[in-house]
């Protein structure tokens, strides 16, 4: 008797969309929290010039927002692994990588109050489609 690798049946549309949404949501939350942490810490080049490399590392490691960001980025990583266990890489990787760029632009405007002007929206859409073509 030969043993064949056990493959999970392909999930339905809504299950697949939910898995990809979980990756995008946790990744976007992680990116925004990390960006907010780094903005609250200030320019690391200036901190390093005044307090050295140890001072810059201490500034990052003593910021609770940074750890919240890393937690969500780790969650996104495990959500990606879980999705890859159920779906093809050729669907999960381009869909999550490209859509995350757009959700990050929206989240950066809403929560970080970045000036996402027409130039940055256009860039986000171009890069989003470009990543999809490149990774698909």
């Amino acid at each position: 008797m030969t043993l064949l690798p056990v493959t999970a049946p392909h999930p339905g549309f809504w299950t697949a969309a939910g898995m990809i949404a979980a990756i995008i949501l946790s990744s976007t939350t992680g990116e925004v929290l990390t960006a907010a942490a780094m903005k609250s810490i200030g320019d690391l080049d200036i901190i390093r010039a005044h307090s050295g490399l140890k001072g810059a590392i201490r500034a990052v490691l003593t910021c609770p927002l940074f750890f919240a960001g890393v937690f969500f980025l780790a969650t996104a990583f495990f959500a990606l692994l879980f999705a890859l266990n159920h779906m093809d890489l050729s669907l999960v990787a381009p869909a999550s990588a490209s859509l995350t760029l757009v959700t990050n632009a929206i989240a950066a405007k809403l929560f970080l109050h970045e000036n996402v002007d027409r130039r940055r929206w256009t860039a986000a859409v171009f890069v989003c489609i470009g990543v999809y073509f490149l990774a698909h």
Partner: protein
Amino acid sequence: MAHHTLSPRQYLILALVALCAPLGDTCLSRGMTHLSPISLAQPGSLVAAVFTPWIAVGIALLIGFFASYLTALSWADLTFVLPATAFGNVIVALLSRFWLHETISIQRWLGIALITIGVGFVANGPSLTERPQPAGDSIREEQLQ
């Protein structure tokens, strides 16, 4: 909005952001495919894999990516830094074409063109959203100087 221009050192950090992540992933991929299949029942072999040359270099590159990414986020907007990370995919595709002589489909060339145009759009704009500085910050800056 004031036009925040970047210093050569800051462009170098953005280049590291773009380069380190895809090169690190490539090193990890190369290292893992050269190993025999690892089972979750033998976690020791997974730890041993960390000390093989390709995987060690991959991890070092990914640490370099995260350090330069955090540095970039400390002086530039998230929507300015993220396209730089995506530009890394273009660099890897071009390396695979001209160094490894792999074939790139028309769809991938189109993807490369779109990402390059997108990054060009962002790079021509300001790197940081201008915000009114609180009075306390200016006093602190004067004290630092």
